[in-house]
């Protein structure tokens, strides 16, 4: 397998990775929209090669408070999948799922965290299953892990994973919703370098 050079990807490779973001996030957004019964728009995916210090700016700055749901990818594609929700969106989702249970929104403990984790699991599952179909590769994921904190702190986890092999992080990022809609956030797929090559190869590139 030819090694993919992060700094020297050609435009076809970029386009293919963008299409992966498009299909994966498209499915995931549909799943999210159905689950919550609200309209959720998706933006055109971006494939970014970023220096670590630029990474938090992708999702609204290092101190932007977000809910990050992280799944580790195993199988033919290794890496991490992150589903990031703006704080308000996370609260909104919890509220919708826990309707009538009379819980205070500021107390994001126990049951509410589990609910949010489960949403993340289903949404990320939709993303990964379409990726799996597209590439004809088996992708399994870990149980979801959830953290609600500053974007920089949450992104440090995949960044460190990437830091072992590169001075840059390559991510396939899709933003959905916007500040005016009810639910907004990001899907970020961060395969390992080896897995990028595997993905591209599976698609005949």
């Amino acid at each position, binding site marked *: 397998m030819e090694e993919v050079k992060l700094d020297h990807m050609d435009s076809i490779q970029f386009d293919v990775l963008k299409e992966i973001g498009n299909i994966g996030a498209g499915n995931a957004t549909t799943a999210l929209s159905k689950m919550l019964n609200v309209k959720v728009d998706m933006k055109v995916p971006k494939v970014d090669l970023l220096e*670590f210090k630029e990474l938090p700016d992708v999702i609204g700055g290092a101190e932007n408070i977000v809910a990050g749901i992280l799944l580790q990818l195993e199988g033919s594609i290794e890496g991490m999948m992150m589903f990031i929700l703006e704080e308000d969106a996370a609260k909104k989702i919890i509220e919708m799922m826990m309707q009538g249970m009379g819980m205070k929104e500021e107390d994001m403990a126990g049951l509410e965290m589990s609910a949010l984790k489960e949403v993340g699991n289903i949404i990320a599952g939709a993303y990964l299953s379409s990726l799996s179909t597209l590439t004809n590769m088996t992708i399994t994921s870990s149980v979801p892990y959830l953290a609600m904190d500053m974007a920089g702190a949450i992104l*440090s986890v995949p*960044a460190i994973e990437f830091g*072992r092999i*590169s001075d840059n992080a390559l991510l396939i990022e899709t933003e959905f919703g916007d500040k005016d809609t009810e639910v907004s956030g990001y899907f970020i797929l961060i395969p390992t370098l080896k897995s990028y090559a595997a993905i591209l190869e599976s698609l005949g590139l």
Partner: protein
Amino acid sequence: MSQVIKVGMADLNICLPPDTITTLGLGSCVGIVLYDPGKKISGMVHVMLPDSTKIKNNENIAKFADTGILELIKRMVAVGASRASLVAKIAGGAQMFAFKTNNDMLRVGGRNVEAVKQILNDLKIPILAEDTGENYGRTIVFDPKNGELMIKSVGKINKVI
């Protein structure tokens, strides 16, 4: 006019009064502040990984605890800091996600803190204060005028160490 100098992930810089120096949203990374209290010269490095010798791709020296700390000392001494007077304050190294695994790769916050302490100990730089570990992110701001390191976290009262 005083400025706030920003240090990004895998980045370092030095700072003299009246400026302050900050790094935002530290997670499993560790923020290390070195300080010469006599000359009021400070520096901060935001490291991601413990050891540059274990990694093939190690061009960015600010990414690693070992090379990052040495470079910061070099820069501080170059602007007049006294190597023998340096003291340290450290923060970060959280475990952001509660991974249910024994995989050492995922315990990177803890390993970063251990490495930083070992390196500072080997360099005979005393650690005056630390706020490390736990499971939450931190924004840190250091003021070389008085040597105070302010730590801000989501849903917590700001603290000064």
